[in-house]
């Protein structure tokens, strides 16, 4: 399956499709909806969950010894409302493209190629939009991911994002992906005054500048931020993570008429135990944003480093 996936991803990212097949009596190999469409910057990121290595104490694939050092489910947090049905999983695929039809084509065909060998547990669509070179905004209207700029260098990525030399060989240069689906109470947020919204984050809504600073990327003086503001807590944690958030919109809550929408928090980091989990714990306990959000899904995956030509996803795990 991982070999088939690799072949498909390689082809699709170049804008190709599998052949529709020359035998009209059997189903076409490719589903066809991207014929005539460009690759649209399609990317596929693969991650392995803790249960891929050991599930219920069983080493199903004989690979437990290759489990990354920090790969475990995110522990229970205060105030969370996690639905196990849309959390976790053995394997995760993050598929991104500029065109939803191209992205879904990849999702759909990767599912087809896994039939009988893997079973779909959950699926989540999201979107992000912004002007190139500027930090995209989340559905609260605030810039999301400003602090990524702090480690925007080769050394910064080594320190913050890429997994270290103490990891199993396949994981070195890979990264841990933390995922939280965070429902945002948009209706109450939209009835909150601008000053309260800004105090909740500790940043100006329009400019993105932290309280006491002028520009978005100016140095943050934590002391000038409200004690429980989101950015203050992030700074207090003294840790960095690489944010890659998307927004989502789902359905209507039939009881309240409120829209189910929010943030697909995704962050990449070198060591979630040190960087991510303590930060999350502090946020869950203190963050002023908690009045407006609820964490409803959670997962942690280990994403291997990029492939060399001829390799397939997970090869260095399964053939080690």
């Amino acid at each position: 399956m991982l070999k088939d996936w690799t072949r498909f991803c390689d082809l699709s990212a170049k804008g190709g499709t599998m052949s529709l097949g020359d035998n009209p009596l059997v189903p076409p190999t490719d589903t066809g909806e991207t014929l005539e469409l460009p690759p649209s910057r399609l990317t596929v990121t693969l991650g392995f969950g803790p249960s891929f290595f050991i599930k219920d104490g069983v080493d199903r694939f004989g690979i437990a010894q290759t489990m990354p050092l920090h790969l475990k489910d995110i522990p229970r947090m205060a105030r969370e409302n996690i639905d196990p049905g849309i959390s976790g999983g053995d394997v995760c695929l993050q598929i991104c493209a500029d065109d939803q039809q191209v992205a879904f084509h990849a999702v759909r065909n990767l599912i087809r190629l896994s039939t009988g060998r893997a079973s779909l547990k959950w699926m989540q669509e999201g979107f992000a939009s912004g002007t190139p070179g500027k930090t995209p905004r989340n559905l609260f209207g605030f810039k999301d991911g400003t602090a990524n700029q702090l480690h925007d260098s080769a050394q910064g990525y080594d320190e913050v994002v890429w997994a270290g030399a103490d990891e199993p060989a396949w994981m070195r240069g890979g990264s841990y992906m933390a995922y939280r689906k965070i429902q945002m109470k948009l209706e109450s947020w939209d009835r909150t005054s601008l000053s309260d919204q800004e105090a909740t984050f500790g940043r100006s809504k329009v400019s993105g500048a932290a309280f006491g600073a002028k520009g978005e990327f100016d140095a943050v003086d934590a002391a000038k931020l409200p004690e429980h503001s989101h950015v203050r807590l992030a700074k207090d944690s003294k840790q960095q993570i690489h944010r890659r958030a998307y927004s989502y919109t789902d359905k209507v809550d039939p009881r309240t008429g409120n829209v189910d929408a929010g943030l697909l928090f995704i962050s990449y980091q070198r060591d979630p135990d040190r960087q991510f989990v303590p930060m999350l714990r502090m946020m869950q306990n203190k963050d002023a944003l908690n009045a407006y959000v609820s964490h409803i899904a959670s997962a942690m995956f280990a994403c291997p480093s990029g492939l060399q030509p001829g390799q397939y996803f997970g090869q260095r795990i399964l053939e080690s």
Partner: protein
Amino acid sequence: MMKKTSIGIVTIAGMLALSACNGGSNNEGASPSASSSASSSASSSATAASPVSSSASADGSSAIQTGTAQLLDQTNQLQGLIEKKDAEGVKTLGKTINETWLSFENAVRQTFPLEYTDVEKYEMPIFSASAYDKIDFDALKANADGLAGALAKLQNAKPSTASASELLKEAVKKYQQYVVDQTNKLTDQTQAFVDAVKAGNVDAAKAEYVKARVYYETIEPIAESFGELDPKIDARLADVDDPSAWTGFHEIEKALWVDNSLAGQDKFADQLIADVKALQAEVQKLELDPKTVVAGAMELLNEAATSKITGEEELYSHIDLVDLAANVDGSKTVYLSIIPALNESNVELADKLDQAFQEMEKALSGFIKDGQYVAYTELTTDQIREISDRLSALSELMSQTAAIL
């Protein structure tokens, strides 16, 4: 309000998480798959994982000789136990027989596909019976006798030299006979059902209903090919334009399970048996071609994967698993008949299908209680999902079989 020319980065992310299927990773070689364990028999070279090609069959044919002799011996023992009505003995031996058969069936399928189908036809019900808590000794005796006969034929079998088109013709003929047999049984069983309905006996009618449905569901696509008859016999309330014109099995099903009364059902019972007899008459005249047969196998699995797995087919009696198993069975019959042709063009596909059917049947047999499939409403979402996943795997493979045409 909205700027139409936003050139920004519109990145759309799809995230999905998957769970690995247990025992499904057999081509990765990483995990021991839940396939057959070679029994005490002499050959371990012909288990499911290592197909023996028919050209290099020195190993294969001796494995077939040894295996067949052993299986025949066990079948004779089984006949003795059936004579003595030894339920426990029959169950244990049923499992042993299945292990023996699994240890060399791949070799048989590739060398003697026609004989293989016969053995499989009788062997499977014997194995299934070993999972039941109640044994139907009469049915079992018929299968044991059939198996003994099929094995005797296998012992004297010569490799087939028929051409591809002859093999297909043979497959169609075989399947056509099956359709005729099933339709005859359907007619008899529907008669018994109708009799119970007209006698006003709700309990008896419920029991006969379940039995009759099986025969319809094994040949559903064929029945559907006779335009008007299928809706008259098998329509659900949601299918009909005018609810007052609704007839057939499901109309009476509703009376039985919802109203718990057969009042006013006589005319529906009369109509049902008349329609089923009309179907029987049509089937006698039927001339099938290979394309229809193969497409029918796929349709059966699609039926199972859409209306049965969702519990929509048997909305009142909730015997959807009975129908689903019958769909799978009907589909397997097609697979068994086309094995000779599959061997010619795609042995690997035959191997995978064989494995997928085994896993499907094994999964389904876990839902039999007191000799009957449990009600759909008793299944948990996880259990339904398990069946659905197996069905998907099977369907995916079956969708490739048309390549033999």
